């Protein structure tokens, strides 16, 4: 009997360690003789400097080194460009330490290494840099226009990249329109705030000339490559270990942050272990941001609400450098048509440098932006045409009978965005039902008489998941009976060890406790890239299945020899291979693993071990989808909003573990609500950040997030062997649009229109009072 594990809500294997304090996060890495580092960061958004005077800092007892760009030499060459774009004009990437010019407040200028972090911070206060500040480009729209201050003086414009994409016949679409909506929509700047900030610990082994690096990265294998290259070492001499990591959300994947290079550099220079733990203020200014875009859209529609075409010209704030390429813009334009059959789509984006921290993906990577644009436009077209917001969606959805339906858009990883394996109309019907959408609408006239302003909003999402590149997994049965699973993609709390165990244990018919998973250590498995873009289950899970199946086939072959029975007559169960119908005729996997390592009789060309590795890439990815629905009540005297009901209907294909799926949805939705109503970064006109603490960056807490009702629809994905679609980001994508739609509906008597998220109570009161939006 094989026990079914895939699809079961088994308890997370990680939790006992995490909940009993036995996890090892980066700050739990304690090495003897370890030093502590702090980074001197630019106080100016734009400045040149010629001299860094560290004499006073070095004179402070306990300070071991002050490292500047001059000390780094070749290690300070520009970081790699991770994504190409056909429209690149002048890509610029960052360096570990600014060489004479800083481009945002927070950019790394020097590294202090001292006996304690306290001393290192004391030393920061003593370093003098002769900054000559210059005018900064801060506002996205102004930075994109010619004539203003330049972020990179060797360019003639802050526009880093200008790219257009066209699907269908856009001119005919607009010629045929009864109605055209034109508006500007702005998802504002935010940033991922994992509970654990970033951190790096490095230890140099002078005897072997090797470096071991503990790093909160989401991509240890790739980080190893960049760090080895910059330090002039063989990849084999560098080990990167991502220990337990307390949340990533995208901000911990970057190749590489300055500290990921500086800390191993310092450890080698001083021949002592060095630790750097980012503090929250640094995280606000020294780690990457996300979100800000300005979309100018035109939507062509017929009188009965069919969308004929969308034109979207948008600006994308890239921050001071664009090592990631305009990836968020690429994703936003790819998902613009959403789940709708929109015959013509024209997008043009400009990625623009500003004197602000670098922008890179954060949970959803541009998809929350594109989603907000389309879903807000749906609401606004519906209102202009006198249609219901659910009805206009229904009229435009791709239907199961249309599938596969090629949207004509190309997603990240060069993945065509082709709809299949989902039932959007059914998703909508379920959401509308769960929300009691009709009931809310029916109640509105009477409630408004009494001064109660309740409204319902719905928003679809489609999410490109499971994209390239490939990931790999090795499965090895040990003579001890343990099954060792190793992979390069690490976990930041998602529960990969549990889901990989479920896949491997079920395939090999072993007890889950026998499976040992190791991930995120470049010395154990060094192929693949990392954890991002909702791809671990699709790509890594499929590789795990492939590797486990290959091991199963080997086990059957070996057992067939051992038992002298044809493989077709054998089955796996309870950690052993049995003869069908004669369970007493069996050989354990442990014994087979032992037999698979014939140390004295190995044949030429044969490989020892009961093991296999598999590598998986999904050329067409996997599209996850769903609907969020919210019912809110707005207090029209204060602009405060209460979310009464929040419903998520989603389809992530086969759920390997429904509990983990729900965790992803709840967390993602909470972050989405943060982006809808709470979290916003601001700068003054000189580029000084105004939000650098949790007093000002309002992350919603358990008190603000309403109960979230989840409805699963499990349409098997036909593109990968597990039948899964990614679920990591979907929760975060449509929340802003659903919330904004509900607020608009509640405030319909005031003609409220939401064109920027996050909303806040003053913005809501401004809509009620008809003030110009502040």
């Amino acid at each position, binding site marked *: 009997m094989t026990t079914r594990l895939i699809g079961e809500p088994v308890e997370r294997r990680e939790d006992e360690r995490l909940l009993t304090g036995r996890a090892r996060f980066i700050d739990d890495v304690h090495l003897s003789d370890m030093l502590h580092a702090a980074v001197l960061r630019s106080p100016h958004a734009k400045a040149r400097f010629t001299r860094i005077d560290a004499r006073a800092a070095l004179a402070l007892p306990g300070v071991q080194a002050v490292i500047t760009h001059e000390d780094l030499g070749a290690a300070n060459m520009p970081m790699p460009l991770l994504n190409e774009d056909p429209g690149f004009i002048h890509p610029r990437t960052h360096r570990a330490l600014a060489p004479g010019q800083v481009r945002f407040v927070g950019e790394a200028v020097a590294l202090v290494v001292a006996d304690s*972090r*306290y001393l290192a*911070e*004391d030393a920061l*206060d003593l370093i003098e840099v002769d900054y000559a500040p210059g005018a900064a480009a801060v506002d996205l729209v102004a930075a994109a226009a010619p004539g203003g201050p330049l972020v990179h003086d060797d360019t003639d414009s802050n526009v880093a990249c200008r790219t257009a994409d066209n699907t269908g016949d856009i001119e005919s679409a607009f010629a045929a329109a009864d109605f055209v909506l034109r508006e500007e929509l702005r998802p504002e700047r935010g940033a991922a705030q994992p509970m654990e900030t970033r951190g790096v610990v490095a230890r140099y082994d002078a005897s072997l000339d090797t470096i071991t690096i503990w790093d909160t990265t989401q991509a240890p294998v790739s980080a190893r490559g960049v760090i080895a290259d910059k330090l002039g070492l063989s990849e084999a001499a560098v080990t990167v270990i991502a220990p337990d990591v307390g949340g990533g959300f995208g901000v911990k994947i970057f190749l590489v942050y300055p500290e990921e290079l500086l800390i191993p550099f310092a450890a080698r220079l001083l021949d002592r272990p060095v630790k750097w733990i980012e*503090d*929250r*203020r640094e995280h606000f200014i020294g780690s990457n941001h996300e979100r800000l875009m300005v979309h100018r859209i035109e939507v062509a529609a017929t009188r009965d609400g069919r969308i004929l075409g969308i034109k979207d010209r948008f600006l994308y704030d890239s921050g001071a450098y664009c090592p990631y390429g305009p990836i968020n813009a690429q994703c936003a334009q790819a998902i613009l048509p959403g789940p709708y059959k929109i015959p013509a789509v024209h997008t043009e984006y400009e990625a623009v440098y500003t004197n602000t921290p670098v922008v890179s993906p954060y949970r959803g990577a541009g998809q929350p932006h594109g989603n907000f644009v389309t879903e807000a436009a749906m609401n606004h077209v519906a209102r202009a045409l006198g249609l219901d917001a659910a009805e206009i969606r229904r009229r435009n959805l791709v239907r199961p009978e249309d599938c596969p339906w090629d949207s004509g858009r190309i997603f990240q990883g060069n993945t065509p965005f082709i709809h299949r394996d989902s039932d959007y109309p059914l998703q909508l019907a379920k959401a509308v039902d769960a929300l009691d959408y009709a009931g809310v609408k029916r109640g509105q006239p009477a409630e408004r008489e009494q001064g109660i302003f309740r409204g319902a909003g719905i928003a679809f999402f489609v999410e490109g998941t499971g994209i390239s590149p490939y990931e790999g997994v090795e499965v090895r049965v040990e003579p001890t009976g343990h099954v060792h699973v190793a992979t390069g993609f690490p976990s930041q709390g998602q529960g990969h060890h549990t889901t990989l165990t479920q896949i491997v244990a079920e395939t090999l018919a072993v007890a889950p406790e026998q499976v040992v998973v190791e991930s995120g250590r470049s010395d154990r498995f060094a192929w693949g890239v990392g954890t991002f873009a909702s791809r671990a289950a699709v790509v890594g899970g499929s590789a795990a299945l492939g590797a486990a199946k290959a091991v199963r086939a080997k086990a059957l072959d070996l057992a067939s020899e051992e038992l002298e029975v044809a493989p077709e007559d054998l089955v796996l169960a309870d950690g052993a291979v049995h003869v069908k119908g004669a369970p007493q005729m069996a050989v354990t996997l442990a014994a087979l693993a032992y037999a698979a390592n014939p140390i004295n009789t190995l044949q030429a060309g044969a490989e020892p071990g009961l093991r296999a590795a598999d590598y998986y890439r999904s050329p067409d990815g996997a599209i996850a989808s769903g609907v969020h629905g919210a019912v809110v009540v707005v207090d029209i*005297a*204060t*602009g*405060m909003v209460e979310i009464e009901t929040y419903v998520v209907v989603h389809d992530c294909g086969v759920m390997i573990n429904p509990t983990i799926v729900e965790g992803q949805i709840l967390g993602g939705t909470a972050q989405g609500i943060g982006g809808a109503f*709470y979290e916003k970064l*601001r700068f003054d006109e000189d580029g000084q950040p*105004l*939000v650098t603490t949790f*007093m*000002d960056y*309002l992350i*919603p*807490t358990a*008190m*603000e997030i309403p109960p979230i009702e989840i409805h699963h629809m499990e349409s098997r994905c036909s593109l990968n062997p597990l039948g899964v679609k990614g679920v990591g980001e979907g929760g975060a994508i449509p929340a802003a649009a659903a919330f904004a739609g509900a607020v608009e509906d509640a405030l319909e008597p005031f003609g409220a229109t939401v064109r920027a998220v996050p909303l*806040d*109570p*003053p913005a809501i*009161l401004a809509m009620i009072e008809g*003030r110009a939006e*502040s």
Partner: protein
Amino acid sequence: MKPPPFAYECPTEVADAVALLAAHGADARPLAGGQSLVPLLNFRLARPAVLVDLNRITALGQIAVENGALRIGAMARQAAVEADPDVGRGWPLLTEAIGHIAHPQIRNRGTIGGSLAHNDPAAELPAVMLALDTEMTARGSKGTRTIQAQDFCAGTMETALAPDELLTEIRIPALPEGTGWGFREAARRQGDFALIAVAVLLRPSGAGGIDARVVVTGTGEGPVRMRGAEVVLTERGTEGDACEVAGNAAAEASEPADDPHAPAWYRQRLVAALTQRACRDAAMRLGR
């Protein structure tokens, strides 16, 4: 986010603490619950040379009712006062307001004295103390003196305390039977500092009249008594649109500035709405 170096003292007697403050002058800072001071140290916004830890001075922790008045030691934890049944019965406005300070974890450490001495312009306690006619007791090297609530707050994060003075105790007089009270706060998240908070107290004053006290905080000026609103309530009672008129009077009298959390006009709207609501709450409780 690590503090600069400081020396640390932990006296067990008030007199010793006062002596330490006197000896070090402006270089010394008392440490109470640390919920405001430690962040200031970590951001290096405060750089005292000496921290005088008050946490071992047990004499400062008492909560007692004496001759009808409530006496609270400066080191009484906010959570302890919030949970105290005598406080809940006699001064429910105080209990209610404490529930709006931060989160339970912070109230477990944060003290009454620390909040008052810190005097954040959006803090609840200074406003409530003004509404309740509280008397503060301060002890310094020159002796002990009493400061009335209306004289205690001296601008944003400034108080009437001298650098070598400790706030040792507060004394809140009894409220007349049937006093109505209301406390309303708007904050972005549960536990955040108030965007605006309003405390209203309606004391019965013979022959069916009322003596009204309306205090608004969060406008940036610290707690402000809204005398115009008080006059409306005293003269007109709480019937009809009196609460609304009082709210509008309070809004007109308030002078918030724009800040990153909210524009000035928005805070004025909140003053109007919350004052009106707090007045209604107080009116409902009046005479019960």
